[in-house]
């Protein structure tokens, strides 16, 4: 299911394990870094996939993020959680990659490759189950997920990242505030604007 379930509030035991692994990494222990990566690669890979909408690009970007993390780990002082620090790197790298891909019309090409939009009615959106979907409902959800991803691709970078971090990956306002270096008020207002923008995009597609 959604990545939100993956981003549980990191227990103190998980945090402690991250801290120990980071300490070993800083002494040049590559095996410790490999373990750190295995612990966080799923979250980062899904974040990059939602940001870029392409598995190939997500794979490349995830690699770059972990390579950058390894290079910068000596500068990580442990004041924030390792995952928060890692996401800061991911956000910077994703922003640069989106700029690069936008200059090459990557997102426009992706849209055209997807073909004509799969039309569903707004009633389908209303009928979306609150609990686990049946197989038929799941098909609809999957198609709806494709529509959502296309709308995400059209949003400005800042709106896209805050929606993914909050609504897809389930980070708290405080975590968002640390990752994005914004105060809580700005996080809330930016999130509100992003949700309204996505809602408008989906409404236009579904009607």
């Amino acid at each position, binding site marked *: *299911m959604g990545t939100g379930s*993956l981003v549980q509030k990191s227990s103190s035991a998980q945090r402690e394990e991250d801290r120990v692994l980071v300490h070993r990494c800083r002494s040049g222990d590559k095996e410790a870094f490999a373990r750190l*990566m295995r612990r966080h690669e799923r979250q980062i890979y899904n974040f990059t*996939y939602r940001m870029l909408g392409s598995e190939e690009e997500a794979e490349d970007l*995830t690699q770059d993020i972990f390579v950058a993390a390894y290079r910068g780990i000596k500068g990580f002082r442990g004041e924030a959680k390792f995952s928060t620090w890692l996401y800061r790197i991911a956000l910077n790298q994703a922003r640069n990659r989106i700029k690069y891909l936008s200059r090459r019309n990557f997102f426009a090409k992706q849209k055209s490759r997807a073909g004509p939009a799969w039309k569903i009615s707004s009633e389908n959106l209303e009928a979306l189950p609150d609990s686990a979907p049946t197989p038929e409902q799941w098909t609809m959800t999957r198609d709806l997920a494709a529509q959502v991803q296309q709308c995400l691709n059209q949003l400005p970078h800042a709106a896209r990242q805050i929606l993914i971090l909050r609504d897809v990956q389930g980070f708290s306002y405080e975590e968002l505030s640390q990752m994005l270096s914004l105060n809580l008020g700005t996080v809330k207002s930016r999130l509100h604007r992003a*949700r309204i923008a996505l809602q408008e995009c989906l409404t236009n597609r579904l009607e």
Partner: protein
Amino acid sequence: MDCLKYHAQFTAYLDGDLQPEERKAMESHLKECLLCYRKWHSLQKMQAVLSRLPDLDPPEHLSGLVMARLRERQFRQSFWPVAITPRWLPLGVGVAALLSVFLIIWQLVPSPLPVPAPADQKRMITRTGPSEQSVATVKTTERNLGSTGPVMVLKVKDFSRVNQQLEAMLRAFSQSMAQERESIRPVRSSSARLIDVQVPGQQFQDLIRELHKMGHLDPGQLDSQEFSSPRQTKAISIRIIVVSNGKDTEVLRQVHTAPNQE
């Protein structure tokens, strides 16, 4: 007006971030206003879709690729103090291009040093010296001579006496004085000598003055471009050809046709 106020609070309501009184007011408004209820419900459903977006499994080889890149980087750094990555390549190419342009411009700007003219553009400056026994000829040609600096041809009456004086004076000036060039033996045997001499740049003008004092150079030549040398030049190479008066045509012909054996 109220609807707009509630719309602005939708996100906070969705996230359970409203105060109890605000939440109660929102709930009662949503019961009364169908338009706001639909809008809020649509937003709620959209968030449900986002939170249930299918999660992708990362490729199994992902961590292996990252570790391989780290090993490659470490290997490269064992050879280079700074990692040379594709990101630095454009910068390197740019610097190299700038350097090339700079060198080209440097070559094109006229040098204050005496620049030898191309071989097919021989330029001879011949003046009659103050004394009857000497005539100085300065040529700015390099063909077959292999010299990088100016070439002076001193035509003298008393060959042996002038040679001794000249050698003594040149020794005083020169940093390194080459021996006669054995390769130009015909020239030597027909009363001519070829001397390569290297003098400090700041002493070049002094050498010219000394040659003038010895009567080998016309004072007018001191202003000639061939004798101007920048003082900051570390050293300047001069080739001096001493020939007997009257044999200059034959000797010069031999000098120019002699093979260049640096």
